[in-house]
C-alpha cells in the first residue's frame, strides 16, 4: 500500500503540473494585431476617421465568402483604431449567414443576394419593432480566371462562356474562341471548367449573367447551386482559384480579389465596342447602371447584365450587409453601427480598391450612410 500512496502523490503532482501549465497557457497568448509588418503612412491616415464611440466587445458576423477579403481589410483598419472591439467575420456562405442572422446568432450578415420577402418577414422576430434591410457595401467583379500558358489577353463573350461551362466547347482551339481571339496562339489543350461544389452567391450571379446575356446557350434555371452537368468542382472561391493556379487548361469564376498573382482574367465582350476588363473601376461603372429595387430603407439593387456603355463590366456582384433597421441588440448596437459606419464612409470605401473590390457609387452609398447613422 505504501507503493500506492506514492503513486497517488505522483498522480497528484502530475495533475498540478497539468493545471498550472494550462493556466500559464491562458495567460501568455495575445491576439496578432497586425501592427508588426506594414505600419505605412496611408494605413495610419485611414484609421483617424474611424469613430469608435462607445463600441466594445465581440461582434459576430457571418455570410458571403465573396466579400471576405474586403472584410479582412476593413477589420484590420477598424480594430487598430478601436482597440476594445473584436470583429469575427465567418465566411460561411450567404445562406448560412442569413440563417445565423435570422436565428439571432450574429449582429449582421453578409449576403450576395437580397433578402427574400419571407426572410424579411422572419426577420421581424429578431428585430423587435423593425425589420432586416439590405445595405449594398461592396461590389465584386467576378473574374473569369484561366490558366493557358502563352495566352494573356483572352476575350470571350457570354455565349462562348456558356458553352464552355456547359461542356459544349471542350478544347482551347475551338473555332468560337479562335474567332474572338484572332491573334492568340491557342493550344489544343482540353478545357477544364471548374465550378463551385458548394452553393454560392457567386454561382448565382454568374449564372444570372449567363441567362441574361446568352439565353440561347444557357438553358438552366440558375440559382445558388450549379446546375449544368459535367465539369469539375472545388469548394469556395478560394478552392477554385487554387485549382486554376494548379491545373493547366483550367477556367473558372471567382471574385477578382481571389485572382491573385499568376491568374489571368478573361476580358468580356459586351454590347459595347471594346471588350471590358475585369477591374474595379469597370465594376463600379456597371453598378451605377443598376436600379434600386428595395423599398424604404432597403437598398436592394438589380444589375443590368447587358450594358451598352463602354467600360462597364457586367459580371459584377453586389454584397449586402444585412442588419435590423430597428431593434438591434443593445449590447452589439454600438459596435455594429460604428463598424458599418466606417465601411460605408469614404475611407472605408477607398480601402476597397486596394483589396480589388469595387466601391459602391456615390449616390447609393450616401443613402447607405444615412440608414446606418439611423440604426437603432
Amino acid at each position: 500500500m505504501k507503493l500506492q500512496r506514492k503513486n497517488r502523490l505522483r498522480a497528484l503532482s502530475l495533475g498540478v503540473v497539468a493545471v498550472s501549465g494550462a493556466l500559464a497557457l491562458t495567460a501568455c497568448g495575445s491576439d496578432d494585431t497586425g501592427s508588426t509588418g506594414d505600419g505605412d503612412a496611408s494605413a495610419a491616415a485611414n484609421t483617424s476617421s474611424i469613430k469608435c464611440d462607445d463600441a466594445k466587445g465581440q461582434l459576430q458576423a457571418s455570410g458571403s465568402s465573396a466579400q471576405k477579403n474586403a472584410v479582412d481589410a476593413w477589420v484590420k483598419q477598424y480594430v487598430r483604431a478601436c482597440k476594445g472591439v473584436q470583429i469575427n467575420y465567418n465566411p460561411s456562405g450567404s445562406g448560412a449567414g442569413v440563417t445565423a442572422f435570422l436565428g439571432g446568432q450574429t449582429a449582421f450578415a453578409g449576403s450576395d443576394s437580397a433578402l427574400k420577402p419571407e426572410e424579411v418577414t422572419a426577420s421581424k422576430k429578431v428585430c423587435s419593432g423593425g425589420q432586416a434591410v439590405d445595405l449594398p457595401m461592396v461590389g465584386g467583379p467576378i473574374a473569369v480566371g484561366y490558366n493557358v500558358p502563352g495566352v494573356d489577353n483572352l476575350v470571350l463573350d457570354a455565349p462562348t462562356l456558356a458553352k464552355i461551362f456547359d461542356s459544349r466547347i471542350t478544347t482551347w482551339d475551338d473555332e468560337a474562341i479562335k474567332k474572338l481571339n484572332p491573334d492568340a496562339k491557342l493550344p489544343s489543350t482540353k478545357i477544364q471548367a471548374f465550378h463551385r461544389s458548394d452553393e454560392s452567391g457567386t454561382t448565382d450571379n454568374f449564372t444570372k449573367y449567363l441567362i441574361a446575356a446568352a439565353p440561347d446557350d444557357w438553358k438552366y434555371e440558375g440559382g445558388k447551386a450549379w446546375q449544368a452537368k459535367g465539369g469539375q468542382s472545388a469548394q469556395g472561391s478560394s478552392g477554385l482559384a487554387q485549382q486554376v493556379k494548379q491545373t493547366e487548361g483550367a477556367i473558372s469564376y471567382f471574385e477578382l480579389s481571389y485572382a491573385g498573382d499568376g491568374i489571368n482574367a478573361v476580358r468580356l465582350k459586351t454590347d459595347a465596342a471594346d471588350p471590358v476588363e475585369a477591374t474595379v473601376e469597370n465594376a463600379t461603372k456597371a453598378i451605377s447602371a443598376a436600379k434600386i429595387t428595395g423599398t424604404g430603407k432597403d437598398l436592394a439593387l438589380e444589375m443590368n447584365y447587358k450594358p451598352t456603355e463602354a467600360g462597364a463590366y457586367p459580371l459584377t456582384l453586389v454584397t449586402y450587409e444585412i442588419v435590423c433597421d430597428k431593434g438591434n441588440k443593445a449590447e452589439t448596437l454600438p459596435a455594429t453601427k460604428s463598424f458599418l459606419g466606417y465601411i460605408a464612409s469614404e475611407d472605408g470605401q477607398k480601402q476597397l480598391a486596394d483589396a480589388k473590390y469595387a466601391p459602391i457609387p456615390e449616390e447609393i452609398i450616401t443613402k447607405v450612410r444615412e440608414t446606418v447613422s439611423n440604426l437603432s
Partner: protein
Amino acid sequence: MDTTTQNTEQPPPTPPEPASAATTAEEGRAARGATRPGDRVFLGLSRGSGIFLLVIMAAIAAFLAYRASIAIGKDEGNFLTTMEWNTNVDPPVFGIAVLAFGTVISSIIAMALAVPVAVGIALFITHYSPRRVGGVLAYVIDLLAAVPSIVYGLWGALVLVPHMEGLFGWLDTYFGWTGVFEWQEGAPRSLLTVGILLAIMILPVITNVSREVFRQVPRMHEEAALALGATRWEVIRMSVLPFGRSGVISASMLGLGRALGETMAVATVLSPTFKIHASLLDPGGGTFAQNIASKFGEATETGRDALIASGLVLFVITLLVNGAARMIIARRKEYSGANA
C-alpha cells in the same frame, strides 16, 4: 464480444467467460439482498448512466428520423434514385444515388487496398521483422493511427494529388480500354484518389488491431506446426491466419467504419459533382459525409433537413456494416476454436 478492437496493452490471460458470468449472477444476488444506501446510490448512478446512453442514442435516431421525414416529404425527386441535390429551389429536388455510389465505391477501393497490405504489415511486424525493429514499427504505426484525418486531408490535397497524375496516366495507357480506368486529363481528384487516401488513412488502424491479434496466437499452435516441419509461411497459413481471422475482420470493419464516415479528408481531395462517372479516374461523385460538410453552409431549412436525411442513410449503412461484422465474428468463433 470481441476483445480485439482495443489496441490497449492486454496481458495474454484473458479471464474465462463462464467464470465472470457466474460471479455476476452471484453478485447480483448480493446486490439484491443489500439494502445499504451506498449500494443503492451506486447502482442507481451506474444504471442511470447506462440509461442515459440509451436515451442519447434514441434521441439521435428519433431526431434525425423526424427531420429527415420532413425533408423527404418535400422532395420532388426520388430520394433514392435522383442524381441531383437542389434543395434551395422550390420545390426541392434531391436524391442520394450519387452519394451512395461514391461512398460505397471509395470505401471498397480503400478496403481492397488497405486490408491485404495491413495484414502484410501486421505479419511483418509480428513474424518477419527483427524484434526490436518490430517494436519501433508498431509504435510508429500506433502513432499514425492517431494522426487526425484533417492532416491526412491536408497531405492528400497538397502532396498526394499532384503525385497521382503519373499513376492515372499509367492506368489510362494500359487499362483505359476497360472504361473503368479511362482518364480525360482532369485534375486527379476523383473517387480513386479518395479511395487511395482513405486506404492510407485506415491502414494503420487495421494494422494495429491485426497485429494485436496475431500477437495473441498461442505459441503452442505455432511451435506445434514448426515441430511438424512447416515452413514459416505454412505456420502463418495454418495457425496464425485461422486464429486471427475474426480479429482481422473486426479490424477491417473498424477501418471500413472510418472510411464510410470520413468527412474532411474526402472534402479536401475530391472534386465533387452530382454525376456518376463510369470511370474511376474522372473527377466527380461525392460521399455522404463530404456532401454534408460542403453543402451545409448555404443550406436553407429544407436543405439542412435534406442533409440530415442523407446523414441518416449513412448512419444506417454504418449500422448494417457493424452488424454484419458482429455476425461474422460470432459465427467464426464457433468454428475456429481459437478462444477455447
